[in-house]
């Protein structure tokens, strides 16, 4: 076993927490029952790594087996690193009929045409997602397995989620994806987050949505009603209204955990008291960033508690509506208050 494989094992072992080690190795299935039992989990990480290297040498496991182990771990714990979303555009007629084996072959052949030294591994997860692990190399070096790119794609949907992709590799991946999924273009969907499940749910609208109704539904189950007859709410109706509005804008129940939303402002500075800035011709550039452990939850709470005005401003409500968290805001025409957000492609 060469040093690069040893380093791969070391890297893997340092990432996998001790408690998850046994289940992950069990799922991997490359170790015999006896070998699995011989891994004493009370030992230090270092000792365990040495042990695993020895076992791998004994079983004559190669890089492709090790990458399998990495994929198993990453699929089970996808909430690491930053996930970016891309959207496939203009499907061709046969885009709906792309199936897994065809996609696999096409993707591999397309990407090998572009880069000679590349190692691609695909796996279909139980939730219908296709996981692709790509280790990139270039003309002079072998694929670097220490910095792989992970791509998650649900077949027959236009969404692709990617993590740790460099600018150099982006056009290569884009081309391979577009060709193998039978689409014509791909664009950045401007949505990124640390939780893959959250951005997937947001993109595919897999969260509880609330729709405006003329007859307010019984909100009792998610509105803590006053049980005690001695406690009376004076403004119960406006509060319920605000909650309804906030839920309409951001969704009800558990919301996808988004970490941040960025607004890049390229609008003119408007303030009557500050003449020098207002009269400047060029736009005033600044970036507004909202950050939270669960941004949508915070925004919904702001709206329902009355800190933010309701109905919710389209700037905030377009985060779940359009499924993106990066906006560029530019002046739209000469009107004084015509701030609109324009899709940036």
């Amino acid at each position, binding site marked *: 076993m060469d040093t690069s494989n040893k380093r791969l094992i070391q890297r893997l072992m340092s990432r996998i927490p001790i408690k998850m080690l046994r289940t992950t190795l069990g799922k991997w299935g490359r170790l015999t029952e006896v070998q699995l039992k011989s891994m004493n989990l009370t030992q230090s990480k270092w000792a365990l790594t040495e042990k695993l290297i020895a076992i791998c040498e004994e079983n004559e496991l190669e890089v492709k087996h090790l990458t399998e182990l990495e994929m198993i771990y990453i699929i089970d714990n996808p909430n690491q690193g930053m996930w970016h979303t891309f959207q496939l555009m203009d499907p061709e007629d046969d885009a709906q009929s792309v199936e897994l084996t065809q996609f696999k072959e096409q993707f591999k052949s397309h990407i090998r045409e572009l880069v000679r030294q590349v190692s691609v591994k695909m796996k279909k997860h139980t939730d219908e997602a296709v996981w692709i692990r790509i280790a990139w190399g270039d003309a002079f070096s072998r694929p670097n397995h220490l910095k792989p790119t992970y791509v998650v794609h649900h077949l027959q949907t236009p969404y692709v989620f990617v993590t740790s992709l460099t600018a150099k590799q982006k056009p290569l991946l884009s081309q391979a994806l577009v060709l193998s999924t039978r689409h014509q273009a791909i664009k950045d969907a401007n949505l990124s987050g640390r939780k893959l499940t959250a951005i997937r749910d947001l993109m595919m609208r897999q969260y509880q949505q609330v729709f405006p109704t003329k007859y307010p539904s019984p909100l009792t189950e998610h509105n803590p009603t006053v049980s005690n007859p001695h*406690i*009376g*709410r*004076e*403004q119960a109706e*406006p509060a319920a209204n605000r909650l309804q509005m906030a839920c309409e804008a951001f969704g009800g129940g558990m919301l996808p955990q988004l970490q941040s939303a960025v607004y890049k402002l390229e609008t003119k500075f408007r303030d009557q008291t500050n003449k020098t800035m207002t009269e400047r011709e060029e736009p005033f550039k600044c970036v507004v960033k909202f950050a939270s452990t669960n941004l949508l939850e915070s925004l919904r709470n702001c709206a329902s508690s009355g*800190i933010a005005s309701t109905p919710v401003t389209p700037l905030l409500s377009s985060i779940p509506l359009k499924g993106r968290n990066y906006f560029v805001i530019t002046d739209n025409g000469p009107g004084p208050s015509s701030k609109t957000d324009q899709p940036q492609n």
Partner: protein
Amino acid sequence: MSVLNPFSKLPGLNTANILLVESEEQFQQSLADALVEETAATVNVRLAKSLPLPLENEEDRPRIDLVAFIINLTSELSFQSAEASLKFLDPGYFLGKVCFMVTNARNTAVPTERLDAVRKLAASLHCPLLFAEDQTPDGVTNATERLLSILKVAAGLVPMTTALYLSSLTRCTVPPDIDQPSFD
């Protein structure tokens, strides 16, 4: 515009009614839950985000004996909302039937000017100013006890004393040197 009046309705027998006004509607709920536990008298709690109160509740609203404004010092909005709500109270309330309760006063992020502003407000209206801890159950119990003792007097449940008499003893006073820079 409806102004809340302290004597427009008849009092109930052995009943005390308190109105908690808080723009954030966080602390008032836990306070209300603790207040209604009182057994010596029937305590009715009304919760509001701000004044004026909606007209449609006018009928079933009991006579309010004490109005407590809860101000979260970490939020400027909370103070402004309380200040704006004061206009919708009958002057009769300021004879001992209003008190201010401040939370988060020990938070280091709070600018000292805001606390001074609240103290000045309370002093100018001759109202008591209470400090409370809203995060711990003990803090809620303490705040409840303090409110209850004022409420009982304001509702006339304590013999030999009146709200006006109590307020002349408990009202907030501003130290004369509050506007001078401190040397710390």
